[in-house]
Every structure is written in structure tokens, then in C-alpha cells.
């Protein structure tokens, strides 16, 4: 149990008041329109959505996860967090294309990119799935907060889950995305400072850089500070094959939309940026902060390992970063540390609440139930949806102990079999809504077969996760490529309009030529263009 002094309580209470107040302060802006409530009126400079990307992806369970992989694998474990690098490519490819589409959400983008009944089915599916998944994620991070509060104060887990998410809902309900992004900015600063201070403290307590390396040398574990300590080409915990697969998924995934679960959060931030340039830099800058943060955590956890080696229980060493903060920081700083944890938690909760409400309001209520709803009504539906997502998260959070494995599976299937279709929908004009829809359906069935059913039946060995990825990708191809060619392409008028507005990368020759024929874009003289470049 952690004992708070007067100064600890003062830090914490003052911080919560400032945070809620700064969010509520933007009430007048948030209620102006649905564009303000969900996208801050599409007028933000790049550094605001960038800080929101960083703050949102710094969740309560993230330091637990980072602690786990670094404690177990040493500095090599940092590559598990490198999936975030999809933004290195996305910032200059898919972000640019998506920002130009002006779609409020990824579900809306489906109806701009594809046409007809298939596009509407996709929009409904992705919107419903996103509302559901955002409730699940909130339940997940809420329970992580419950565990931290139980460790620190001995509270029942549900107290941490309900209390802090409810405090957060105050400013999300009042000011919508305006409240989210302004609170995220100041939370991002507090979080970065907190992580930096705890990391420096952890390394200092472990004897500083030289002390850590000397202690590891004594125990014959210097491999723990080598980020390229592979266990073989295909064998062991960290094979080269996994590393190459990770780089492939992460970097080339940036060409597509939805190749990682984080895309859906980023999509909202991309549209809230005031220009295409701001959108690109917001995604790049936010992710640069995420990766730097991971590096700070990694150094701290290696320090913790030197101080406390030999912990066998995963649940124990996953609390490493929290233990450094609560056990090593001096009295008076513990309140600041807990305020950092609250900032970490609330920044994620606020973003996910508003994101879930966006899909419920824009893609389900307005698109299918009341297309002519007034802006005032849409803002109120947004608030009502926020409450629904919050209550749903309490329900899922209370069941989370039993469904963690299922959730990991749900996120995994999301990334594996539809990774390539998420790229193809961006770069290939002929890939139609039926092809994309069939890839989702096929992936649901194939992932169950490959991950669980066939190995249980003894018809397929239990494969490492990187091998599952390649197998699911190949099996999916055998279904959605024939479906694409057996169904007609999307309506050419629709494709031309999308092409002229978004200017996608890739294989769009027939659509481009049609747009040129109609005089919607100029015909490029390639020799002239080459001359201008050189």
C-alpha cells in the first residue's frame, strides 16, 4: 500500500481539477456543431492532434505491457512496440489520402471509396464494430487502472474502473473532441515529464548507465542491453523471421488504412488537422513521441531488472514501472507520479469515448436513422452515445478477467487476414467493396481455423504468431481476389470523383485516364514533368 502525504494529495487533487476545468472550458466551442464535437471544426495546428496521438496511445496498460516485454526479453523487447512505426509511411501516404477524402471516420471513407450496396454494408459493419471495440478497449484500460489502484491503495478493482472514467466523461460530455484534445495536450506534457523523471530515477537507483552494465556483466546477462539479440533465424523467443515480419507489417502497413487498430484513433486526428500538411506532421510527430516514450520505459525497466532480478510471475514483473515510481521516488513526488498515471489513463479514456460516440452518431444515427438531423440534435446524440459507450465499458470491464484471451484474438484477427486488403483498398482501383467485405468474412473463419480449431484437431501444428500472419494472408488471398474479379468493379463515376479529390497512390490507371478524358484533371506530359524535376 502506498501512503500519501499532504503534498501528494495536493498534487493529485489540483491536477484533476485543472484537467477537468480545461476540458469544460471549451464547452462553447464543442456544442457549435457535430464537426466541432467530433473534429474540433477541422481547424487544429499539427501539434495539437500530435499530442493527442501521443497521449491517447499512452494508456494505463501500456507501461504494464512494456514492462513485461523488456523484463523478459531485455532491450530486444523494444521491437514489440515498433509496430507503431506504420506512421512513418502513413504520415506521407495514407494520411494524405485520407485527409483529402474529408471522411469523418473510416466507416464513412468506405462509402466514398466504394459504391453501391457493398459500401453501405461495409460502413454499417465497421461503425458497429468500432462502437463495440471502443467499449471493449475502455473496459480493458479501465480494469488496468483498477489494478493499479488496488496495488497502490487496496481499493476494489471496480472503483478504479468507474471513478476515473466517470471523471473523464465530464469534460468529454461538455466539450466533445475540443475537450479531448485540449486535455490531451496538457496531459501529454505531464505524462512525458512523469515518464522522464521516473526513468531517470530508475536508472540512477540501479547505479547509473555504468552500474547497470557492470551488474549485468557480472551475471553474464549483457545481452539484455543489446537491441539485436536474436534467438536464431526461426527458433526461440525472438527469431529474425519475427523481426522481418514485424518490419514488413509496420512499415508497409502505413500505405493502407486500418492495417493496425490504432488507425481508427489516428483517422479522427487526421481529419481534425487544419491542412493536409498539418495532418501529416501530426501523425508523424505523435508517433515519434510514442517511440521515444517506449525508449524511456525500456531504460527504466532494465534498471528495475538490475535492482530486482528473478521475478517469475508475469503479473508481478508487469508492474515494474509502477513499482519504480511508487517505491523509489521520494515522498511528495508520489502524488505527482499518481497524477501522471491519472493523466495517462484519462487521455486514453477521453479519446476512446469520443471516438466510439463518433461512429454511433455519424455513421449509425445520422447516416441510417436521421440524415436531416440538426447540428444541435447531433451534438446531443453525440453526448448520449458517449454515455452509452461509458456504460458499455463498465460492463465489459467487469467481465475482462475472463475475456482477455478473446480480446487479444479479436485484435489479432483484425490485423492479420485483412492486413493486405486494407492496403489494396487504397492502392488498387479494381479492388471492390465485395472483395473487401469477403476478406473480413473470410478472415473471421480462417483465423479461428488457423489459430485454434486446426491445431486442436491435430491437422496443423501450433504456429508462431508471425507464421500465422503469413498463412492467414495467403489463405485470405485465395478468397477475396476471385471474389473481386467475379463481381463488377465499382461505379466509374464514383471512382473518378474519389480519385480527383483524394489522389490515391498505386494502380489507378483506368480511373485516372477517365478523369483526364472528362477534363477533371490535366493530362501530364511525362517528358515535361521529368524535365521539371531534373
Amino acid at each position, binding site marked *: 500500500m502506498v501512503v500519501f502525504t499532504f503534498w501528494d494529495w495536493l498534487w493529485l487533487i489540483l491536477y484533476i481539477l485543472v484537467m477537468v476545468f480545461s476540458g469544460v472550458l471549451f464547452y462553447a466551442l464543442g456544442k457549435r456543431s457535430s464537426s466541432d464535437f467530433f473534429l474540433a471544426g477541422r481547424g487544429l495546428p499539427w501539434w495539437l492532434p500530435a499530442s493527442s496521438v501521443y497521449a491517447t496511445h499512452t494508456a494505463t496498460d501500456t507501461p504494464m505491457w512494456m514492462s513485461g516485454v523488456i523484463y523478459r526479453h531485455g532491450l530486444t523487447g523494444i521491437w514489440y512496440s515498433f509496430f507503431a512505426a506504420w506512421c512513418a509511411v502513413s504520415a506521407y501516404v495514407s494520411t494524405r489520402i485520407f485527409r483529402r477524402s474529408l471522411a469523418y471516420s473510416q466507416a464513412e471513407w468506405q462509402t466514398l471509396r466504394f459504391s453501391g450496396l457493398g459500401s453501405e454494408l461495409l460502413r454499417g459493419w465497421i461503425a458497429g464494430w468500432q462502437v463495440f471495440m471502443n467499449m471493449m478497449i475502455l473496459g480493458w484500460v479501465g480494469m488496468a487502472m483498477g489494478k493499479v489502484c488496488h496495488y497502490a491503495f487496496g481499493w476494489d478493482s471496480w472503483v478504479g474502473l468507474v471513478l476515473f472514467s466517470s471523471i473523464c466523461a465530464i469534460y468529454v460530455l461538455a466539450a466533445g473532441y475540443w475537450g479531448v484534445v485540449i486535455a490531451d495536450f496538457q496531459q501529454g506534457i505531464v505524462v512525458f515529464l512523469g515518464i522522464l523523471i521516473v526513468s531517470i530515477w530508475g536508472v540512477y537507483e540501479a547505479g547509473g548507465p555504468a552500474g547497470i552494465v557492470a551488474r549485468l556483466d557480472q551475471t553474464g546477462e549483457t545481452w539484455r542491453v543489446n537491441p539485436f539479440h536474436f534467438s536464431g533465424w526461426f527458433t526461440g523467443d525472438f527469431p529474425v523471421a519475427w523481426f522481418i515480419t514485424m518490419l514488413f507489417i509496420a512499415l508497409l502497413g502505413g500505405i493502407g488504412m486500418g492495417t493496425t487498430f490504432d488507425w481508427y484513433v489516428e483517422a479522427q486526428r487526421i481529419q481534425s488537422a487544419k491542412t493536409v500538411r498539418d495532418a501529416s506532421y501530426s501523425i508523424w510527430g505523435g508517433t515519434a513521441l510514442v517511440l521515444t516514450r517506449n525508449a524511456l520505459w525500456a531504460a527504466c525497466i532494465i534498471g528495475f531488472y538490475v535492482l530486482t532480478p528473478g521475478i517469475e510471475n508475469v503479473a508481478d514483473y508487469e508492474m515494474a514501472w509502477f513499482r519504480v515510481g511508487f517505491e523509489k521516488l521520494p515522498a511528495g513526488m508520489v502524488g505527482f507520479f499518481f497524477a501522471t498515471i491519472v493523466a495517462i489513463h484519462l487521455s486514453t479514456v477521453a479519446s476512446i469515448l469520443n471516438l466510439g460516440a463518433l461512429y454511433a452518431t455519424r455513421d449509425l444515427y445520422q447516416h441510417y436513422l436521421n440524415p436531416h438531423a440538426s447540428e444541435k440534435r447531433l451534438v446531443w446524440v453525440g453526448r448520449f452515445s458517449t454515455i452509452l459507450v461509458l456504460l458499455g465499458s463498465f460492463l465489459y470491464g467487469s467481465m475482462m478477467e475472463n475475456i482477455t484471451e478473446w480480446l487479444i484474438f479479436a485484435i489479432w484477427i483484425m490485423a492479420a487476414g485483412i492486413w493486405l486488403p486494407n492496403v489494396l483498398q487504397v492502392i488498387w482501383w479494381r479492388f471492390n467493396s465485395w472483395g473487401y467485405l469477403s476478406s473480413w468474412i473470410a478472415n473471421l473463419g480462417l483465423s479461428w481455423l488457423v489459430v485454434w480449431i486446426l491445431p486442436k484437431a491435430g491437422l496443423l501444428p501450433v504456429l508462431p504468431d508471425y507464421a500465422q500472419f503469413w498463412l492467414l494472408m495467403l489463405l485470405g488471398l485465395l478468397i477475396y481476389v476471385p471474389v473481386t474479379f467475379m463481381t463488377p468493379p465499382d461505379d466509374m463515376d*464514383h471512382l473518378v470523383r474519389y480519385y480527383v479529390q483524394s489522389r490515391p497512390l498505386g494502380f489507378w490507371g483506368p480511373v485516372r485516364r477517365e478523369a483526364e478524358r472528362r477534363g477533371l484533371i490535366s493530362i501530364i506530359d511525362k517528358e515535361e514533368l521529368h524535365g521539371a524535376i531534373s
Partner: protein
Amino acid sequence: MALFRKDWTAHDADNWTKEDFWACVFSSLSYVLLMLGVALCFLFPIWGILTTLAGVVCVYLMYRAIDPKLRTISADYEAKQKAYLKELDRIMKWEEQ
């Protein structure tokens, strides 16, 4: 001859060029170097600082490659955005398919 083009017309900037490719390359390299560099600063300070500095150089090259093009795209697109938003509103209200 400049390594990366600095002056763009709206027409040319709408196309995918070598500047986009190099921006993605330097962007990816900078992520790797910044992440490893910051972690190594706490373990092997000299190597950490050198790696981080190499990451900063990559960020600068990325910026040089892509910023002039992004500025042109943004300026051109902003002029059209209002009309596109009106069209999006009509689609949303099922007034246009």
C-alpha cells in the same frame, strides 16, 4: 542540381514522386534511430547520443524532402475544401449518390 525539388506547382504536387519515397525512407530511419538512441542514452551514453543525432539528421532530411511539396498540396487543397465539404454533406443526406 538540388537533391529534392523545392518549387512545386499544384498540378505536379498532386502526383507521387521520388520526394514522397525519400520522405518515407528517412521517416522510417529516424524512428529506428530516435527510439534506439534515446534508450541507449541511459545505458551507453556516447553511443546513445550519436545514434540520436543521426536520427535528428534523418528528420531534417525528411523535412527537406517533403515540406515544399506538402505546403503546395495543402494550399491548393484548402481552396477546394469548402466545395468538397458541401458535397460530403449532400452525400450524407442521401441527396447525392
